[in-house]
């Protein structure tokens, strides 16, 4: 099954006068993990922040071009970014549990604040999301404790659960492991293998081994341009562009 769920066509993005992305053309396949690698400042975070229209929330930032989600251009006027973000979830670099909320409330936040009040349905959704995020067994007896009382790795899985609770079709991960230790990182990576059965995942990472381990497709960004995009195996074993080869062999970046 190689259905394109996201496709960028000549996507450009700016921060004020500074162009952060130049004519990006690539796609994400459904139920696959796509990794985006590249040195700092290459535009990889900007790119995934365009996919759920978070980019434009930064003052002065804008984007142009076409970004298809299934068949709709998400940059068309008809699209409400608020609704779009329920279909395209996101987890950030630093774990960001809501500080005043319990573990339960953190996971329920997206549903509850969008109007779901049925207690049973909330409980079910929270349990299911925590299970999907492989956190349920660790927290099931302390759901009323504050979310910030968990360890960093648990907090990050809590954020994954919180994103999953609103039932997105795509999950964007912006360097989700860069603040975590290797064991927590391993847990998140295992999780991705499970999640891709019913989700499409895009992960930005600094860590090339991580991309090689988790991703089906990998794209390499440099200075706001997409240098190379293809099956992970091919990118890491037989890259066509010399810059990709230099980067993955550690000669720069």
């Amino acid at each position, binding site marked *: 099954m190689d259905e394109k769920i996201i496709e960028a066509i000549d996507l450009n993005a700016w921060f004020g006068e500074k162009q952060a992305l130049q004519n990006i053309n690539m796609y994400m396949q459904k139920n696959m993990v796509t990794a985006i690698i590249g040195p700092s400042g290459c535009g990889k975070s900007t790119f995934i922040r365009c996919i759920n229209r978070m980019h434009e929330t930064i003052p002065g930032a804008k984007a142009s071009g076409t970004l298809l989600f299934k068949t709709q251009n998400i940059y068309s006027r008809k699209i409400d970014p608020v609704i779009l973000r329920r279909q395209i979830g996101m987890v950030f670099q*630093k774990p960001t549990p809501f*500080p005043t909320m319990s573990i339960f409330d953190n996971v329920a936040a997206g549903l509850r604040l969008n109007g779901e009040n049925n207690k049973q349905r909330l409980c079910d959704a929270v349990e299911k999301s925590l299970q999907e995020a492989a956190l349920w067994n660790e927290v099931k007896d302390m759901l009323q404790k504050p979310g910030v009382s968990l360890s960093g790795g648990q907090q990050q899985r809590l954020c994954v659960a919180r994103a999953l609770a609103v039932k997105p079709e795509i999950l964007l991960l912006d360097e989700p492991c860069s603040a975590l230790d290797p064991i927590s990182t391993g847990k998140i990576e295992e999780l991705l293998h499970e999640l891709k059965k019913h989700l499409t995942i895009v992960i930005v990472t600094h860590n090339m081994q991580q991309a090689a381990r988790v991703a089906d497709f990998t794209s390499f960004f440099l200075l706001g341009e997409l240098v190379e995009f293809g099956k992970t195996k091919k990118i890491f074993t037989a890259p066509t562009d010399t810059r990709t080869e230099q980067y993955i062999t550690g000669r720069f970046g």
Partner: protein
Amino acid sequence: MENGQPRSFKIRKIKEKVFLAATMLATLAAIVPLFSLLTYVVIKGISSINLDFFLHCPVPVGESGGGMANAMVGTFIIVSIGCLFSIPIGVLGGLWLAEWGKGKRGFYIRYAVDVMAGFPTIVFGIFAYMLFVLTMKRFSAIAGGFALALVMLPYITKTTEEMVRMVPRSLKESALALGLPEWKVMIFVVLRSAWSGIFTGIMLAVARAAGETAPLLFTAFNNMYWNFRLDQPMASMTVQIYNYAISPFEEWNNLAWAGSLTLVSIILFITLFVRKFSRRVTYG
């Protein structure tokens, strides 16, 4: 040169001691007035505090006894009216300044709030007098509450702005990424995270407003009797203390001390309570 210490080293040590002593003396000088004031108020006030003081209204000249019961309730009501005006405006205004007030407009509003914080409070009293007393043709609790609201407003606005600024951007982003509309993110995530700090600011503003006399003198005026109607003159502790204090009767002067002691205790209690129970939120 003794045991390897050059002369300049010794001089530096002496300088350090002198400077340390000077700072300690300055600190002492700053807290001595506070403590002597507190002691004085306690000594003068404690003898006139009894159950009657808390349960009775003032009595006419010539009769003995009388208290400040109506004034205490009055202060509570007037400050509550002040809260009713100032909390919603202050909190929303502070939120606006923190989130959208980066441009020129924000600069001028922030400047106005700073100026307002330093305003002589009697000016707020005059303003409320013009707005309410002159139009209603009588003194009223609501005029007093409005004047106190103006006293409280800049404090609440400034604390809210500061507390909201401390909420990290990443927290807002993760709420937005859940597909929540911005106004819900602001209320249920940003304000809620900043709330304990904002509450501290509100309580300190309440403590400050409760101790104000000038804005109440010609707005809420005063009342010797119980009054719960907001469109009528109402007693307050500060104005009652003022009236007791300037009277030529010794018993009334003593009641003024007792009132001062009570008011200072309440304000001290609020401040300590806020210190103790306002825990800082840790982000992430």
